[in-house]
């Protein structure tokens, strides 16, 4: 049903209603206002009209309509990303709110994959797999209550269990994508209509990879097939304190190379630990950096042994064993870990990737900025945390929390300096969005970008998908 009716001003209103229905199309400014930002402070154009498709067939028809009329189109998932990736760069965009497309299509136990509609949220997917005694590899971004699988793999999202399984995109086997002409492509083994969706790399080149991290510029993802694993019920946890950040990062790198942990996360200084978990280090005055480790296995002995090895390893780096409460809380509060931090104020993030060995270098620069702007004196707290990922790199989650609106101007100055220094120390943001794009495009190798634009032009000749993204404009 509809309570706040459409304004019916958007030129495609009637045709979009005929493809879907009146209840799922709206261009009223009251409705649109709720789609004008994601979970960061940045702003761009408001969408022109919101459509909530229910099926791939509807998405196909909408894309055909947009292509025919050369109308820009932007897909949106849970819209709780923190880089502005989902925000339109041009006016009058048709925004697809994909959250109605949230079905689990198939759990294929023979080949250990799950195929879902792209608007399904990570937490819901975990729930559904758990009932069948399976788990995902990568579990979802820290906002996975709301973040959708389609949204995450479109922006190279990273988060829970990336230490063992890599970022969201590593778990993808196949995609179903609606192309700019309205036709559908299935990647991975999906090229063969008679094959199960069991593998990503087969017979031809990896077309899945073209669409992963595309920020919605090359097509609309409607289905995602992910790897699944037997549910592992045995956990061991460890919390380790270090006298220096260098010792902590040396341990982080060493431990990460072994790949024992589901989650291995560093809090880079006492202030970060205090912001995240007030009082945790009160009894450990000498501890400057803190690491939590979570091991998950199908066998208890295996889980115990891995944690023992990690403890032994940590001693070589001078670690203090400080129990496992924080690690347990970290894992049990999955998808609910970050939200209490908002109590400190609105956040300005700098999410990126970097080699583990370059964490101390960037933190030296961050501390200098924090000092320069007297952040703590201004009640601006920070958290510098690094989630180990894949084999030897980590996220750089260095975030400041602005307690009141009047502190925003000063905080933004500090934040912009942080972004510059982070790039200067070898960072590669995992997502781009409004947050990083200008800097990323300036930095990017010309041949790399030219190749991307050739692909874009070939796949989307009328430039309807997320126009202006990756151009570096701000």
């Amino acid at each position, binding site marked *: 049903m509809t309570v706040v009716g459409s304004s019916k001003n958007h030129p495609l209103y009637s045709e979009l209603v005929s493809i879907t229905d009146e209840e799922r199309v709206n261009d009223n400014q009251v409705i649109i206002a709720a789609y004008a930002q994601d979970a960061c402070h940045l702003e761009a154009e408001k969408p022109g009209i919101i459509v909530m498709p229910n099926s791939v067939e509807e998405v196909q028809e909408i894309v055909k309509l947009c292509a025919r009329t050369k109308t820009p189109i932007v897909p949106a998932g849970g819209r709780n990303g923190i880089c502005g990736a989902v925000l339109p760069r041009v006016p009058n965009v048709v925004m697809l709110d994909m959250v109605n497309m949230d079905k689990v299509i198939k759990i294929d136990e023979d080949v250990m994959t799950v195929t879902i509609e792209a608007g399904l949220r990570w937490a819901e997917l975990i729930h559904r797999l758990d009932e069948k005694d399976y788990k995902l590899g990568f579990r979802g971004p820290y906002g996975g209550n709301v973040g959708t699988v389609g949204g995450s793999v479109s922006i190279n999202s990273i988060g829970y269990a990336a230490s063992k399984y890599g970022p969201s995109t590593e778990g993808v086997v196949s995609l179903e994508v609606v192309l700019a002409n309205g036709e559908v492509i299935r990647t991975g083994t999906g090229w063969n209509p008679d094959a199960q969706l069991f593998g990503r790399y087969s017979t031809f080149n990896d077309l899945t990879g073209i669409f992963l991290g595309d920020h919605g510029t090359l097509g609309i993802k409607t289905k995602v097939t992910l790897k699944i694993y037997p549910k592992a019920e045995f956990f061991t946890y460890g919390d380790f304190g270090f006298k220096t950040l260098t010792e902590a990062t040396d341990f982080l790198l060493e431990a990460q190379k072994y790949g024992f942990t589901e989650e291995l996360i560093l809090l880079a200084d006492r202030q970060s630990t205090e912001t995240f978990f007030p009082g945790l280090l009160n009894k450990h005055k000498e501890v400057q950096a803190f690491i939590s480790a979570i091991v998950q296995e199908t066998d208890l002995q295996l889980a115990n042994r891995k944690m023992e090895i990690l403890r032994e390893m940590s001693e070589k780096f001078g670690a203090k064993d400080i129990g496992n409460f924080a690690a347990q809380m970290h894992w049990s509060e999955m998808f609910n870990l970050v*939200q209490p931090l908002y*109590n400190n104020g609105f956040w300005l993030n700098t999410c990126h990737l970097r080699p583990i060995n370059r964490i101390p270098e960037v933190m030296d620069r961050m501390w200098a900025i924090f000092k320069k702007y007297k952040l703590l004196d201004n009640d601006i707290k920070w958290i510098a945390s690094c989630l180990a990922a894949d084999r030897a790199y980590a996220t750089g989650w260095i975030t400041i929390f602005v307690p009141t*609106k009047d502190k925003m101007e000063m905080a933004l100055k500090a934040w912009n300096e942080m972004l510059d220094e982070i790039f200067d120390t070898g960072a590669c943001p995992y997502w781009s969005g409004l947050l990083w794009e200008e800097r990323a495009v300036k930095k990017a190798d010309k041949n790399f970008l030219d190749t991307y634009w050739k692909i874009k032009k070939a796949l989307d000749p009328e430039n309807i998908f997320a126009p202006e993204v990756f151009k570096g404009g701000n």
Partner: protein
Amino acid sequence: MHQKFSKEVTKITTNLKNLSKYEDEMWLCARCGDCSLADKTVASNRDVYLPCAIKNVLGFEAFAARGRIMIMNDLLNERIPLSNDIVDWAHTCTTCKSCMETCTATADGINLPDMIEALRRDLVQNEFVMPKHQVIEDSINELGNPYKEPSGKRLELFGNRVWPETAPVIYYVGCTSSYREQEIARTTVELFDKLGIDYTVLPEEQCCGSVLLRLGRTKSFERITKMNLEQMKAAGAQTIVTACAGCYRTWKIDVPNEGYKYDFELLHVTEFLDRMVGEGKVSFESPKPLKVTYHDPCHLGRHAEVYEAPRRVIESVENVTLVEMETNKRYAHCCGSGGGVKGSFGNLANDVAGNRIREAEETEVDVLITACPFCHKGLVDGAKHIDSELPVVDLPEFLLPFVRKGRKRIMAENPLKKKFMTYLTAHPKIFEGLKKGATIDYDLEGDRFHVFVTGKSQIDVNPVRAENPDVELIFAPKAVEKLITFDSEDEYAARFGLFFKEPTDDEWIKFVLRLNIVKLLMKGYRKFAQKAGLI
């Protein structure tokens, strides 16, 4: 190279003076979207599932708290104007508080219900109104009820009964039970009679004013509250009992918040009956086995934090089994009727109620019980709306045929629970550092009790599950057997921590955090955790 914060300079609209008070709180909403799309069933043992019942029907983000705050920010910043669309939109929120309960951005959650009511007050003051709301206000002013019913007919449903002028207990009937859901009033009275309660009703009961507050029309609240209070005083009330969750919330929360004091005890009928059951003054028995589920009225549950009393009463009925819906207690989906939604958009309320009925049907029960005439009306309409045959009954109506006066249902008692309670009572220092009001629920193989901190190292150990605990602690029996052997609180704490950090198959402790970490620390749990060696 600097990035822009905002395209517009912030400018507060002066005529949104009520809403603008919430500007700082809106700043703390980081738009995570949990209030709209969260599913924490697996992640944190919180039973949240798509918490906004209105958004679940209307679809667009504008109807969930995250979107509503974005829109309200735009109103304050004059990016969008007040309009009739805003009036409609503002009255689609049931103010059920589900979003606030889900939200962990602040210690209590971002207070969307209060923001919406503030905006509604601003709308009224700016003359952006729904005509039907004016009719309701006029009716309350002229007739003492929102239904345009003659005030003299209020007590007609009880026939020619002569009510005593004074009594220790007053049954505050409420407008919906008096005029629309009369069966609830009749059965409540019949139940009280059967139980031998010494009670009366107010001779000229006025509307409690809930609907006025919910719709942003506050002018008449003072007059009707004073009229009711005067009558209550004249009747010598020691205890006011109501079967209406909306009236209960108004008397329990809104009336004191508006500056009125009263010295009587206020109980919802579920609390009143729970007390009688606990004291062994009444028991109930169904002649045949029944499976039932219970819908938490938002005004009784999330707003007034009464979750367990109705459940204990239901579970006390011999031959009755309570089955919980997927969303229940603090995360229960709203029925869709509250906050003025049913009066403003009846079809929307029916759709929302229909979804709740479907949720109840999934439990495969015989009966859906609720404890609020407004929820009852909404759910009955919702059932009709989706052609469901699931019976919906209010709690007094459900209980009336099952009264078995004086015989208590014998519940098997876990002897270890009793020993544990005795031990904790003798060792209040375990809870040193916890602030007054801290509440810890204990679960021993499903047997519950709770510790309530009443002061510095002072506790009450209560044999029932807490209404709204901060933390739930789940114990293996062997762990308890060990813990209660320690004379020293420090030894207890150390072993407690060990059972959590290094659990074995037989000796373990698990936590369920019901509050976010910020709020737990504010309540003093840091010291508790440090003593246990957890941090």
